[in-house]
């Protein structure tokens, strides 16, 4: 009896709605790639390219003048650049989590959204990678951070969390990219096979690396995908843990906290899922993908947002508890200063966005309401940006010696650089939407009822 109820429930979750056939799925997904790009796409791309140009302009100005054009000062040595870095890396968490961890846990609903989320991950990590490179004082010697053999036998400092960060984020990026590409291969072959022009056939053919859909290919593909998923899964946890070490391993009150690794990972998942929801809500509408990116997907993600939001909220509370419980005056001060000091506005923005706004998702009505989830996901993104701002800036601006306390105000360059990074993100994202299949066709088909040899029996 119980068994059948579960089965009943499983059956009710339709991963693809509207009773689409395999061919219809292929048509639906390939359509944006094959059709002439709509006008709005060009307008959006132009806007994104302008922002990208802004980013390049800001970086050019930065290289010419030095980081003094930002609002940094003596106690606040890290400002918006690091905030943006952590923000983008955090966003870049959802994709690999969805594809790798949910894959390993056999969460079949992931197939509708994983391609999309992974693409977002890769672009977000690319945005993130810009910042550690440009935030340093002498960008032209950034390569000192890599362990390159040299005549001085001079190696980087392996004790520095910043170096761990270099490895963690670049590894994460490479593995995510490989994972994404491997998943793309069968779908690229589909587009190649449907190509109507020679150029398309050639270009997609190159990236499809000779995929013929042979049994051996599928065997190798699935093995490779599983292995990469297994490699990527711990990276999901490690990358943001290590990003958190940048703070946790230092000894600054407000940074030096053992809760940081899990707290950062939860926060990253939180913000990553919010970003996926934001983008998906728009994309499924615009490209008519509602049958593949279903309300069910969105609701599942909203549940994860609710859970991770509360994890983050718990972490905020626990930080305060530990600050009090430790009896360490500097630590207590750092946290009271967050809530009551000059940056209280940032702290309370963070709390209202991250802790209060997701509480709406307790209600199914809101979990399934497109406007509500769109607004909440935007709030979460804002809140998570402020979380990084609060951690980075409020801890630094008032540390041990009250004599060196100061206030940090981002300059216009700080802000435009951040805005410009969205230009890079959306440029890449728009190109992705136009030139690559945004849903993993092959994988979706695998979880459709038709893929099950016994599906007739269930019906």
């Amino acid at each position: 009896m119980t068994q059948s109820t579960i089965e009943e429930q499983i059956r009710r979750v339709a991963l693809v709605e509207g009773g689409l056939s395999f061919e219809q799925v292929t048509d639906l997904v390939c359509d944006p790639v094959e059709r002439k790009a709509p006008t709005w796409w060009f307008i959006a791309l132009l806007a994104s390219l302008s922002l990208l140009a802004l980013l390049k302009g800001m970086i050019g100005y930065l290289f010419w003048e030095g980081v003094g054009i930002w609002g940094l000062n003596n106690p606040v040595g890290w400002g918006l650049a690091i905030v943006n870095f952590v923000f983008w890396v955090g966003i870049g968490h959802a994709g690999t989590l969805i594809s790798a961890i949910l894959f390993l846990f056999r969460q079949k609903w992931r197939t509708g959204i994983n391609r999309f989320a992974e693409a977002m991950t890769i672009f977000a990590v690319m945005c993130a990678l810009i910042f550690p490179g440009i935030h340093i004082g002498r960008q032209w010697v950034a390569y000192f951070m890599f362990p390159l053999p040299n005549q001085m036998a001079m190696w980087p400092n392996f004790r520095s969390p910043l170096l761990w960060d270099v490895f963690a984020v670049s590894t994460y990026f490479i593995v995510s990219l490989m994972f994404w590409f491997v998943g793309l291969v069968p779908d690229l072959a589909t587009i190649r096979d449907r190509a109507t022009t020679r150029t398309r056939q050639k270009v997609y053919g190159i990236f499809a690396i000779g995929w013929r859909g042979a049994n051996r290919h599928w065997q190798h593909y699935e093995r490779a995908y599983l292995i990469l998923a297994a490699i990527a899964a711990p990276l999901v946890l490690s990358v943001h843990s290590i990003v958190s070490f940048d703070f946790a391993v230092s000894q600054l009150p407000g940074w030096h906290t053992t809760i940081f690794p899990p707290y950062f990972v939860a926060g990253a998942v939180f913000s990553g899922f919010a970003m996926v929801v934001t983008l998906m809500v728009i994309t499924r509408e615009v490209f008519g993908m509602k049958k593949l990116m279903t309300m069910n997907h969105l609701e599942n993600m909203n549940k994860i947002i609710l859970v991770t939001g509360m994890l983050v909220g718990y972490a905020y509370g626990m930080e305060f508890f530990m600050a009090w419980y430790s009896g360490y005056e500097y630590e207590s001060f750092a946290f009271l200063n967050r809530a009551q000091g000059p940056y209280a506005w940032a702290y309370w923005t963070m709390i209202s966005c991250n802790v209060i706004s997701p509480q709406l998702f307790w209600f199914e009505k809101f979990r399934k309401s497109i406007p509500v989830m769109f607004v909440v996901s935007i709030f979460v993104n804002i809140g998570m940006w402020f979380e990084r701002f609060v951690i980075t800036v409020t801890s630094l601006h008032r540390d041990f010696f009250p004599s060196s306390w100061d206030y940090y105000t981002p300059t216009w360059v700080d802000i435009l650089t951040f805005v410009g990074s969205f230009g890079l993100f959306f440029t890449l994202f728009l190109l992705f939407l136009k030139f690559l299949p945004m849903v993993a066709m092959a994988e979706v088909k695998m979880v459709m009822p038709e893929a099950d040899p016994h599906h007739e029996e269930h019906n």
Partner: protein
Amino acid sequence: MSSINKNKLVDKSYWRSSEDVKNTADFQSKMNREFPEGASEFGDPVSRRNFLKIMGASIAFAGVSGCSVRRPERHIKPYAKQPEDVVPGKPSYYATAMAVGEDVVGLLVESHEGRPTKIEGNPAHIQSQGKTGLFHQASVLNLYDPDRLKDVSGPTGIVSSDKVFLKLKGALSVSKGAKVALLTETQVSPTFHRLIARLQSEYPNLSVYKYDSVNRDNQTQGLYIATGEWVVPQYDFSKADIIVSFESDFLGPELSSVKYSKAFASRREPELGDMNRLYMFESTYSSTGAKADHRFRVKRSDIEFVLWKVADRLFSKLKTSLPSDMVYRLSKAAKSFDGIEDRVIDELVNDLLSSKSKALLIAGPYQSETVHALVFLLNQLLGGAGVTVDYKSLPFSSHSYVTEPGLASIKALSERLRLKSVESLLVLGGNPAYNAPADLNFSSLLKELPLSVVVSSQENETTDLASFVMPRSHYLEAWGDLMSVDGSVSIVQPLISPLYRSLSDIEVLLSISSLKQSAYAAVRQTYRRSEPSFSLSWDDWLHNGLVRNSGKSKVLSSIDRGFSIAIMTALSSKSVSHGLEVSFLTDNSLYDGRFSNNGWLQEVSDPITKLTWDNAAYISPATARKFGLKTGSLVELSAEGRLLSIAVYVLPGHADNAITIPLGYGRKVVGRIGDGTGFDAGALRTSESFNSQHGVTLLNLKDTYELASTQDHGSMEGRPLAREADLDHYKKHPDFPKHMVEHPPLQSLYDEVVYDKGYQWGMAIDLTKCTGCNVCLVACQSENNIPIVGKDQILNGREMSWIRIDRYFEGSEDNPRIIDQPVTCLQCENAPCEQVCPVAATVHSSEGLNDMTYNRCIGTRYCSDNCPAKVRRFNFLDYHQKNPQSVNKEREHLFDYMKEPDKTVQLQFNPDVTVRMRGVMEKCTYCVQRISTAKKLAANEDRLLKDGDVVSACQQACPSDAIAFGNILDETSKVFKVKNRDRDYHVLEQLHLKARTSYLASIRNPNLIIEAWRVV
């Protein structure tokens, strides 16, 4: 090869190696190969392709390297003939001396290949004793200031100096100089005064005037009233047990402050004997006030009443032969003031009486003549003369223009200018158009003058109005001599020939007199008469920097008869003034404005307010509340129809209903550094209100002005950073600072390095002695090529100074105490910065130094974030380029930097210290260049370093000797002994930093009875 062996061409068997002899198979195969294994073939089977690949890459990279070689084509020129005493890379030191007003300090100047770079004190000179003040440290920058006047100029442009001298001589020749006046600032050169006398003998009707906007005339006149003689007091703070200061900031910008700082500090060591006790009555908060054991805030004009109260009590307790009506009137007048509680005065007088001759009263230069006279009287009464205070005869007092008060002198000159009885004026230094009393309208008088010649090192308000301007030499460029107030005389030797066509005052006087002499000859002549075996002595004097050690003291026992009359006049004329009072103050950094164009001094923060690049109107928190003002509010002050718009700084501990404005700011005609800094207090300063202006009205302009402070937060937030206790507490718990922080046992994550061999450098800073005078800061700046950043960068919190002086207020807002704490790199053995640097740019040396490798630094700023003391300084921008005085650089390639420091400014740079570019982190190195120089020297002499061989720049300059530095393993070293004292502590010890810089807690010595009444 083997065939040769077979043919046996030679009999002897030569062998190449043991393998050859053994002739192993391995060796055989080696022999048969042309090249060693692996050299002639590729391991890869597709070797042709690989070869092409490698060749292609090599050619491509060869091309790349061809583009990127940045080899400037410049011709270098060696010394064809090595100058005898110039060893490249090895500095020489020359003795010289510098005067600021009357204050002469003997110096040793470091010179690298003929360019002076760093000023240090001359240990043989009484006023220096090896130490210097702020102005001396910074004066080297004035030498290289690119804004200096370079040419003699007249109405038609550049003219020759001869033409100007001809004009002057022409004017002098009219009725023996009756229509010519000479205006100088305070001059203490014997040759100068000799030449003036000579000139006056040539032109008997030539009149000489003297004016300084910052002067000590009231004291000179007061002592003359009291004694009938021209004398100058020299205090011995090392003998004084009780010091009562009536607004004398003797640790600040006052006469002999370098010497006094050292002597005062010598009595602030509780381990070494009785501490002195300092009572301070002042209006604003001064460095001296910050060191006081008891500080009382009293409006400047009311301080005289406090003195009367003290005098009244003393007269009633001591038998005096003073006129009884004076004593009676004094007693009556004293009662009219109730700003200080009688019980406090009683206790103070008890303290004075218990120490008698070891008590010392002093009064500040802005107090009236009668205050100084009365202070003299009380010191005599207590028996301090000859013990705590010594009267020396005032140098050059035979010249009437020296003894005449400057104010009277400039008034007389103005009057003659107005009456047009003077047609030609020669101004030797000074800037009267800027700082003469406002009511004299000196500028307009000067403008109307037919012939005015101004000798000045910089363009200023006076040169702007002059008909001819002559550049004035810096003291490091010209021969001269200086006599300090104690009578010691130094020869000023130049270290560099004049950078521009400038002349010294002596040269100007020589040129207009009939003497055909060089300045060198004139200076020599001044001393030739008095000494046999002159040449030998002369060399000695130059070498030692001292001609004569000290003048004779005067014993003054009698009190002049005019005295009681003067006192009584003051008693009857003075009444408690109500309303707002503006007091003028010598600026801690700019003095009277003569250092306006000195970037180091503009950027050094005021010891109390921590303001840079500006002055402000200091007011008390209560007065600020009354007018609804806060720091940065703009107000308009008006008095007698004169207006001054100025920003307000709310200074805790300032007297109520009073405003203090430092002089020297708000210059209108000044170089690029001083342009647009601060507000000109002179707008309110008239000859009647030279010290303070009464009855000022304040209008809140409801506008704000940005003041750049290096420290925005004055409270220590209850954190034990600067630790302090009263002597009483210290005696009960000598090691109290060590028990102010409880922490669990500390352990490092990594293996801790044991530093127990060789030299291990460490520093201890005594907070009891530190007066927050900033000398260390400027010394460090000058030694370590630290750039200035400008006001906007200070506002952004980006000051670069490697050592900062934290100032914390403690106690009530109305009259808090101040404690200063110099903070520089703590050189932690477990340095948090080192662990987090991703590129290992900051690493630890075997001698315990936390070293910065600028070349390796990529500028992540992570080290700074993790530095608990926040002492690391980041080059956010290229500050040498951003300096307003920087010049365009000749471009060598496309991406070359566009600017560089001016060529003359570059001459100041210490060649032993890297000039840092933008994007790198820097911080205190413990003067590692000095350590390494000393080590090399010792190695050449085949010995180990001894204590004192290495002296850091801050330690060298500190007038209070608050800094001890050396090898902490050397048990004979001062730093070892100091660090073993009970009150030695480490800041933030809970972080397990194992810092090499430790602090000695500040100990105050208050009178416990008065202390109990203190409102906290």
